[in-house]
């Protein structure tokens, strides 16, 4: 890298972080996810806006080409691995188990229906969604299914917290079901990516078997090793600072291993994240340090850089976007809603579960970008997925508020009407 390239790179990183943060904060004030601002920063700095007036700047500084592009691509890969590690840390196996059958049902139906509808839509209308290679239909359809199936845990959790419903039965069922859907969704997506990049020509079942085997080994033996290792590290290393290096070190090793055996790197990081997150030796401060590091430094760089890759205006296709939106919302509402209804919740609470799990958030964008980079989807479909991820996340809060506070009011009134409840 020469002198000028270094200057360009630091300029690029500095402006990415600053604009991403400023716009992110603006949207946060509007009670919208930070990632909306970060995406918008990328769109403004990339070919969509700035490139229209100053193409030289977007070609040399905010670019995906040349040396800077290579460095940004490396940062993006690191960010994705870290984001998946953080997503893994959010999955808490004990919550899933504790919430029992209702969560399992909500999760199962909430996963299977979007998966089937997404798969069917991808399979039948792949040309409409921009996939022109008939040989890739299976992988493309699996991607569509997975993209419809995953949920955004932090958005769901925050919404429930804002509404004071985080610790209620419905709240915990939503959280547990979303966690399980994420776990299965990312396993599936790793298989899809593994099939795309497979150099060892393993079939779907072999890739799936390896993926599940890896997950089982890390979640049993790996968790055991981590639980033995962390107390030792706590005594011998600076703490909680040392945990950053240890946890991310393990995440990268997991990523390297899964990439080596033909499953995508993200899966190694995700599963290692679950194993770490489940440890009894991680306290709030430690989790917070890891989260803050990832979500405030690497996540903005990743989400801003998306805007450099694609012209969002040129690739916006209203028809595809509307169909993706319709498919995503209806499949999740029907799936998660029916699951919750089957689990014994009222129709109103079930609909709330559906809207809660309908939020796709930042991880949907990660999923979309990985698929775009792997050549599974077109740029137009990627833009549609970004729009869908943002809109479903934004609508979750108001819909939950409307459905759940209404439902609670009914309960409170019933309690007030029944004098026997006062002293028992």
């Amino acid at each position, binding site marked *: 890298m020469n002198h000028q390239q270094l200057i360009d790179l630091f300029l690029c990183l500095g402006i990415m972080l600053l604009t991403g943060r400023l716009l*992110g904060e603006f949207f946060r004030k509007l009670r919208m996810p930070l990632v909306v601002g970060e995406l918008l920063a990328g769109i403004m700095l990339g070919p969509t806006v700035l490139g229209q007036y100053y193409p030289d700047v977007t070609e040399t500084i905010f670019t995906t080409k040349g040396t800077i592009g290579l460095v940004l691509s490396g940062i993006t890969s690191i960010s994705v691995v870290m984001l998946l590690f953080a997503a893994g840390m959010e999955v808490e196996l004990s919550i899933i188990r504790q919430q029992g059958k209702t969560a399992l049902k909500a999760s199962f139906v909430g996963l299977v229906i979007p998966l089937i509808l997404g798969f069917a839509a991808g399979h039948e209308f792949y040309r409409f969604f921009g996939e022109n290679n008939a040989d890739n239909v299976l992988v493309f359809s699996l991607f569509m299914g997975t993209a419809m199936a995953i949920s955004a845990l932090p958005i769901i959790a925050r919404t429930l917290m804002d509404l004071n419903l985080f610790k209620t039965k419905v709240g915990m069922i939503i959280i547990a079901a979303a966690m399980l859907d994420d776990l299965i969704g990312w396993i599936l997506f790793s298989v899809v990516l593994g099939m795309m990049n497979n150099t060892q020509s393993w079939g779907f079942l072999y890739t799936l078997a390896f993926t599940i085997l890896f997950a089982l080994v890390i979640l049993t033996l790996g968790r055991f090793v981590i639980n033995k290792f962390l107390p030792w590290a706590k005594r011998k290393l600076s703490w909680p600072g040392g945990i950053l290096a240890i946890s991310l070190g393990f995440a990268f090793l997991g990523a390297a291993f899964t990439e080596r055996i033909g499953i995508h790197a993200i899966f190694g990081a995700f599963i290692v994240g679950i194993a770490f997150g489940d440890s009894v030796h991680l306290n*709030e401060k430690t989790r917070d340090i890891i989260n803050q590091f990832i979500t405030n430094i690497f996540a903005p760089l990743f989400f801003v850089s998306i805007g450099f890759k694609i012209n969002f205006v040129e690739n916006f296709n209203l028809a595809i976007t509307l169909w993706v939106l319709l498919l995503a919302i209806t499949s999740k509402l029907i799936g998660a809603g029916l699951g919750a209804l089957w689990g014994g919740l009222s129709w109103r609470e079930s609909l709330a579960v559906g809207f809660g799990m309908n939020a796709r958030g930042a991880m949907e964008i990660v999923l979309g970008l990985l698929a775009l980079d792997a050549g599974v989807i077109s740029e137009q479909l990627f833009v549609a997925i970004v729009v869908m991820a943002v809109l479903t996340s934004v609508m979750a809060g108001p819909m939950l508020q409307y459905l759940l506070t209404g439902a609670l009011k009914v309960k409170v009134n019933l309690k007030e009407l029944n004098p026997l409840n006062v002293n028992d």
Partner: protein
Amino acid sequence: MSEVQSNPYPFSIVAVAVAFSPRIEAILAESKRLQQLFQSRMIFIHVGDKNIQQEEYLKHLLHRFGLDGESNQLLWEPEGDPVDRILEKCKELNVDLLVAGALEKESLVKYFLGSVARNFARKAKCSLLMLREPGLQSKPVKTIVVEGSDHPKTVKTIETAVYIAKATQANQITIVQESDVSKMALIRSDELSDGEVEEHKEKIFEAEDKRIEDILQCTDCGALKINIERLDGKPGYVISQFARETKADVLLLNSPDTKLNLIDRVFPHDIEFALADLPCDLLIVHPKESNSSED
């Protein structure tokens, strides 16, 4: 008004799992103390073929500890799985409390396969007292640690702790509220400011405090000293660690809602943290009224 308060002796029928181990005398000595404490009818259950020598020995021990009264019973159950046999008997005889000796720690293999005492904890549909270090001599109960989680069973567990503290003249009870901080981190990852996080936390903590206050208001605590501790960390693990660090004499936990199996050891259920490494004597409180809903 709770059953514990209306019934002065909540453990009126106590079963003791008897095995011919080196600790049999200590277990019987503890049983005698429990009988006096709870005014209970005692049932001693042994699983295995009847053997005249062993029967004579056991009768001799029961006589020695003054446990051979008419109201008490000695049952020999035929060969079979001791856990299932004893639990079947407990159900049949409507036992309130099952008492068993337990090692502080099992080997990893035995822990996963499941020892008798630990399997009682995983399957019992009555309260269970696991005695970690039963002794011939009486040890005073000074400190009691009790679970304060947000669960309907917690009310009965706290009431039982108060009852035991009064009966044993314990110095204090500590109710532990375990804050599941991992969920806090989950929310924080959605870019909340410090102030917002604290605000959310305060709301949750206020609700938790109110819940415990309500339970204590309905429980006749008398002059008993009751502390409330809020601990951050994994539920089940932190209370177990706290009981160990504070050298508690007995730890009271809610019984699991369903029978626990191997999965609950691989991905530990809250109670498994205490079972993996018993911090002190462990009393798992199982409200009888919950049996109908769990069966």
